């Protein structure tokens, strides 16, 4: 009643702010709007990511089998068994070699490529598009392609070696335990280097020319300029790229799956593939989960560092 009175007593009825906008004016509340807009993302984060992640952790402490509902909690048994399993230990070593060599070589070749593409060469844009091209090819296709290239009998490498270089025997790129890992890493490098090159080149192009000119005046050599100007200027780019790539490279399934499927006697088996094998072949869900989780603390460090850096970009 009182409200009606004050309405009637006002000389001019106050136009309610945005009253003609209708229902959207209720969404002026930032909190309400924020939660509403983020609702789908929230569902995905909780239902499709967080919940499965917790479940993986739970599985790793059970002796769960694929397709079987019942399982019992076995504590650290899965992990304990893994640490005594020679196949798993081989996988650990392989994973480190695979990741460290893969990331290291990609970084080196990426720096080289970016440096070359940063020079005043003719048709630079054309060469840039060319050298970044592997990035556009699905990783699975690259793996298939190289599986054919490395083929024992008819692959182009062996073909050339036997016919034009006079080798008597084929080189078993993918089935010789001593070199299989390096063949796989070569493919990983071919596919993954453009990611490094792109980021590094963009970083290099953002370096102000005056720095180099000042160095020239002081008589610096190219090598000095590279190590004292270029590298320090792009150190954030290098950090982010390397961190991202490490997480991605270590967890890649495609290359090993298609090229060697774990390799001659587990010579190229890395842990995501081992987990997949335990899951698909032996139906050991609990143990597979344990395999994927054992390395997670390392990745968590990388993820934490990355999140901080990436959020800094958006200044939240």
């Amino acid at each position, binding site marked *: 009643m009182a409200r009606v009175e004050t309405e009637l007593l006002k000389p001019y009825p106050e136009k309610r702010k945005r009253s003609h906008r209708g229902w959207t004016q209720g969404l002026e509340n*930032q909190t309400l709007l924020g939660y509403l807009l983020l609702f789908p993302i929230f569902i995905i984060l909780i239902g499709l990511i967080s919940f*499965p992640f917790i479940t993986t952790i739970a599985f790793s402490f059970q002796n769960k089998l694929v397709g079987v509902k019942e399982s019992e909690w076995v504590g650290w048994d899965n992990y304990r068994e893994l640490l005594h399993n020679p196949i798993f230990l081989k996988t650990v070593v392989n994973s480190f070699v695979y990741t460290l060599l893969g990331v290291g070589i990609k970084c080196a070749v990426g720096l080289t490529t970016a440096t070359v593409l940063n020079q005043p060469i003719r048709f630079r844009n054309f060469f840039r598009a060319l050298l970044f091209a592997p990035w556009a*090819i699905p990783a699975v296709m690259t793996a298939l392609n190289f599986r054919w290239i490395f083929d024992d009998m008819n692959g182009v490498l062996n073909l050339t070696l036997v016919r034009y270089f006079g080798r008597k025997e084929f080189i078993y790129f993918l089935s010789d335990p001593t070199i299989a890992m390096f063949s796989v890493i070569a493919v990983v490098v071919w596919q993954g280097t453009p990611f490094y090159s792109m980021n590094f080149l963009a970083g290099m192009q953002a370096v102000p020319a005056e720095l180099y000119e000042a160095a020239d005046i002081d008589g610096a050599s190219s090598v000095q300029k590279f190590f004292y100007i270029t590298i320090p200027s792009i150190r954030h*780019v290098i950090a982010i790229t390397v961190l991202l790539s490490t997480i991605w490279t270590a967890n890649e399934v495609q290359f090993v799956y298609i090229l060697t499927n774990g390799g001659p006697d587990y010579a190229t088996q890395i842990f995501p593939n081992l*987990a997949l094998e335990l899951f698909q072949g032996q139906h050991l869900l609990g143990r597979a989960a344990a395999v994927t989780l054992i390395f997670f603390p390392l990745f968590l460090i990388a*993820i934490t560092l990355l999140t901080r850096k990436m959020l800094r970009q958006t200044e*939240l």
Partner: protein
Amino acid sequence: MEVVEKRFKSLGAALLTYLVLALLCVWTLGPLYWVLATSFKYDKEIYGAEATLVPREFTWKNYTTILFEKPFPNFFFNSVRIALVTTSASILFGTLGAYAFIYLRFPGQNLMARSMIVTYLIPPVLLAFPLFALFNKLDLIDSIYGLMLAHLTFTVPFCTWMLMSYFKTVPRELHEAALVDGCTRLGTLFRIIFPLSGPAIAVVTLFSFTLSWNEFLYAIMFTQNKWSQTITSGLSSLMVEDIFFWGQMMAGSVLASLPTVIIYFFFQRLMIKGLVVGAVKA
């Protein structure tokens, strides 16, 4: 000679640069050439004594075989549908989410943004097994809808994050002026932010499509029959079965790479700029 010396500090520097460039080009192009060459050869030039480095005869047989006698078209269209749906959903959710993170203030904002980036970085292999169990229960195995959901787990956070970076470049004054002029917050999203972020949304679309198209782990785990398999799980399953038909496999590989290569070919400048926006900020 003169032109080279004007561009480079010395002849030596020029020679070195071009030499390294040549090596990198051979390294990059070699495999690509070989794939294309194999796909156009007759079997007799692919295997055995008559195998050639440069095809003497040219044939479309491998392509016709894989298109008409193998379930390849199935794979292709499954991948297309999954990528399109995933991308559309990601753009929608991503735009709304990025707007909320950048232009609004509400409790839990920082935590949520952090969580989103963290979850994007969680390796898919850690989520694969429970997702399999979940989809099994929901009868989404061997269904492209299962993969659509699975792909959302990485395309949505990625799109949101990328759009956040772009929204930051829209001057805040524009947004504030609109609010002062009586525009609703939702209105600013549709009338101001959306139209201005055309290129951003284009880039995000291309990336999201590419990410979904190339995805492998979820594809091989969640789709096992030839009606639901995608280009990645389908082609790799063909390899296990038909381990010697390399002509067809290469043809399939070329066809499967076409969408992403075409996208790259037309939009590479845009995409590369978008990709490094996140990694390189002045």
